[in-house]
């Protein structure tokens, strides 16, 4: 909202309201962040390929542009077959987790809500653990069953939590409690499996801590449809989520069906997060830190928050992945370690420097 006497009918005091909306400046900031993250993610790496040649090689990929980058075939392959799919996967996972987190927080009117609130992490973790200890996959290839088991586990957990929450009552609090109960139960099952299968412990732990690993374009291609559909639904409901901020009772008096809206957006957010988790493992913190940092800088309206969560979530995860694969190169840190290690201090910094009261 800006004082703007020029547009619309002038009022007595000359102050014409405008609804909070995504301003060009914020949108540009988000796009710039994505571009910086993408360029950094593509040009920085242990192969030591000059940055300008990487960019020329990428330009060559665009239709209608022919540029000779001067890279040899091995380096070309590193750029187009290894780094590019990995950056794209980071964008998709980060955007999905960031937007899902913002949606969960709005739907529950709870700043601590994240995409894992209703048991997605525990369900995916148990699914992946079952798959790994039974050796039906090694967690690396696409055609193994670990991502599928994780996806099934995540969706199963959310479904059980949602149904249990409705049995317990109609409030969001009972839904949260049901999520906690389901997550605890599944985590207990998973711990039992871990104890009973000590030999698989390292592989399971590696999966749990998350990674943006690709084998070609399979993972990004797998996640892309989920990202597109679920993000489109969440963005479409951004204005309705702003109305839900006054609580179910008042939102209903304003003509909405709050429970139906919550069901739809939570389904979308959960489906997206489950798909992201199934290809990347449990990357924590993105769904909390990205939306909160945006709120502190750009305001709390979901019509600003949700689109920016797509952009900044994507940029944040690509940079986190870049850190994860370069800090201990040639070894890789689990990306979940990086998101928490980088994210927490940054979050405190934003919290300290912002004067906005958001919760």
């Amino acid at each position, binding site marked *: 909202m800006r*004082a703007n006497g020029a547009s619309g009918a002038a009022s007595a005091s000359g102050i*014409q309201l405008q609804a909070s909306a995504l301003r060009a400046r914020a949108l540009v900031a988000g796009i710039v962040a994505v571009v910086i993250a993408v360029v950094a993610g593509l040009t920085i790496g242990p192969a030591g390929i000059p940055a300008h040649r990487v960019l020329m090689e990428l330009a060559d990929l665009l239709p209608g542009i022919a540029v000779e980058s001067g890279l040899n075939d091995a380096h070309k392959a590193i750029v187009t077959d290894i780094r590019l799919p990995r950056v794209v996967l980071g964008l998709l996972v980060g955007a999905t987790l960031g937007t899902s987190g913002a949606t969960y927080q709005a739907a529950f009117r709870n700043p601590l809500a994240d995409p894992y609130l209703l048991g997605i992490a525990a369900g995916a973790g148990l699914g992946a653990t079952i798959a790994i200890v039974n050796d039906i996959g090694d967690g690396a290839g696409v055609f193994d069953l670990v991502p599928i088991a994780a996806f099934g586990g995540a969706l199963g957990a959310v479904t059980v939590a949602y149904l249990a929450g409705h049995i317990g009552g109609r409030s969001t609090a009972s839904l949260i409690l049901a999520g906690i109960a389901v997550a605890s139960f599944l985590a207990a099952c998973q711990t039992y499996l871990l104890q009973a299968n000590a030999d698989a412990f390292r592989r399971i732990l590696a999966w749990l801590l998350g990674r943006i690993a690709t084998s070609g374009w399979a993972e990004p291609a797998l996640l892309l449809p989920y990202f597109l559909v679920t993000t489109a639904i969440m963005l479409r409901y951004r*204005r309705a989520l702003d109305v839900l901020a006054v609580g179910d009772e008042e939102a209903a008096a304003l003509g909405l069906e709050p429970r139906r809206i919550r069901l739809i957006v939570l389904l979308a957010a959960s489906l997206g997060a489950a798909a992201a988790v199934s290809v990347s493992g449990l990357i924590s913190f993105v769904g909390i830190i990205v939306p909160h940092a945006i709120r502190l800088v750009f305001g709390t309206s979901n019509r600003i928050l949700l689109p920016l969560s797509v952009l900044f979530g994507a940029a944040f995860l690509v940079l986190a992945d870049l850190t994860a694969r370069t800090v201990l190169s040639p070894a890789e840190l689990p990306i979940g370690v990086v998101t928490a290690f980088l994210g927490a201090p940054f979050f405190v910094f934003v919290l300290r420097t912002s004067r906005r009261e*958001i919760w």
Partner: protein
Amino acid sequence: MSAAVEVEALEVSLDRTPILTGVDLSVSAGEWVNVVGPNGAGKTTLLRALLGLVAYDGKVHIDGLSSQRRSVRAQHLAYVPQSPVIPQGMLVGDYVLLGRTPHRGIFAAETATDTRIATEVLERLDLGGFGERAMQSLSGGERQRAVLARALAQQTPILLLDEPTTALDLGHQQDVLDLVDGLRRERGLTVIATLHDLTLAARYGDRVAILSEGRVAACGPPDGVLTVDSIAQHFGAHVRVLRDSDGPVIVPTATTSAHATSAAPAGRAATQNGDHS
């Protein structure tokens, strides 16, 4: 005058506990009716039933309502809750624009008409420069006006107010009720309000309805309804009812001495002192 709101044999149970057990109430277009009653009498439940927020038996007729859909109902009834949720970080302007939701649909952006109406309402309620302030930065009186502004932005013919003066000091109570009265006259609004303060309930509005034990025990002009006997019966309160040119003034009498002896003499004393009805 036609009835804007017609309630017949309205029954509502919450968690299988009967709250309203046969409410009959008819409110004419342009009329202001204050619903009073002891705590737990079901005043808020009555408003929620009118809004379609609770399941009920009986008949609720809202004039001109063509459908039971919530969005349609929200174009006819605007609601000021007793304890509105103030969303953290939301700007006053955005908050008032929420009132346009039933007109714009949940997926659409605000039109120029929506922002013009919200601007006018803010101006009318002396909140002209407040559009970009955060809701939680407002004082109690300003906040109540902002909530009222949201309800007015709905541009409904009927306004439902649940204890609109609860959190306010005496001056701000008067401000808000004067404002509602002025708006009612300007816009021909029908007002149904619940109020705790019986004197205010007598000063503002056309009729008073006493809601007691799930029914409307009495309804009519304040003089006839707010008597020492009816207040003692329905509120268990010991009062004197004084008269001035604007209507009855309800004054609590000290109950310590009354408790020491019995309740009855206090009621008689009050009648002798003030109430001649």
